[in-house]
């Protein structure tokens, strides 16, 4: 390669390499997690606050936070028979999930968690559920009555 090429446009070659971030698709996610029942109310609240903060720091848009309260587990986990259930739904890029799940794994107050991607039907269903339109379930119950 002739040297003149380099001499012509030095700026082009000596400029620092630009960082091009990998663009990830923004998707809808939903995370359900179980907090240990040994904590008191304020400690539980603090724990939930911590994870909503994690989401905020990673520029995720938190859509809703649902508290299902203290529920009985179907089987014991870490010798606990109950747990505080929380459900967060948010939109953001996929790398947020890694950060969030790492935070869950490092926190011993969390006994179980599950993150799922929501498709369009799921988003629609969740919106209806949040707005209190339980037509879907009523219909399902009716079919159950017919089937048996």
């Amino acid at each position, binding site marked *: 390669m002739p040297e003149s090429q380099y001499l012509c446009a030095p700026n082009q070659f000596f400029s620092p390499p630009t960082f091009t971030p990998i663009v990830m698709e923004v998707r809808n996610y939903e995370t359900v997690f179980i907090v240990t029942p040994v904590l008191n109310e304020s400690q539980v609240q603090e724990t939930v606050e911590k994870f909503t903060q994690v989401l905020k720091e990673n520029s995720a848009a938190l859509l809703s936070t649902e508290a299902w309260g203290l529920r009985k587990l179907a089987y014991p986990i870490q010798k606990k028979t109950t747990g505080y259930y929380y459900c967060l739904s948010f939109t953001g890029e996929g790398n947020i999930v890694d950060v969030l799940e790492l935070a869950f794994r490092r926190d011993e107050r969390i006994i179980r968690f599950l993150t799922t991607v929501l498709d369009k039907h799921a988003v629609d269903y969740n919106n209806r559920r949040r707005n209190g339109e339980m037509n879907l379930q009523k*219909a*399902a119950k009716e079919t159950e009555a017919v089937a048996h």
Partner: protein
Amino acid sequence: MATPAFNRNNDRSAMNKPQDTRKKYCRFKKNGIKYVDYKDPNFLLKFVNEQGRVLPRRLTGTSLKFQRKVTQAIAKARHLALMPYVADALK
């Protein structure tokens, strides 16, 4: 009274009774349900037997598309301890 679908072939007592002529159908298709929610264990309980195992399509009439979704939803519900992996008497 129609005989329950699950002892149609094996139960000898059912052999003399008139056969259930009602056609099975996929309740998701019929009711326009597009999403199987893993957060609703009471609904998923309908697709599971007393031991907590997933019932086959041949008994519930669910279409293949939704049977896959049901199994996935049950798997998620089990992970979150909303449903048991194994049980003695669920119903």
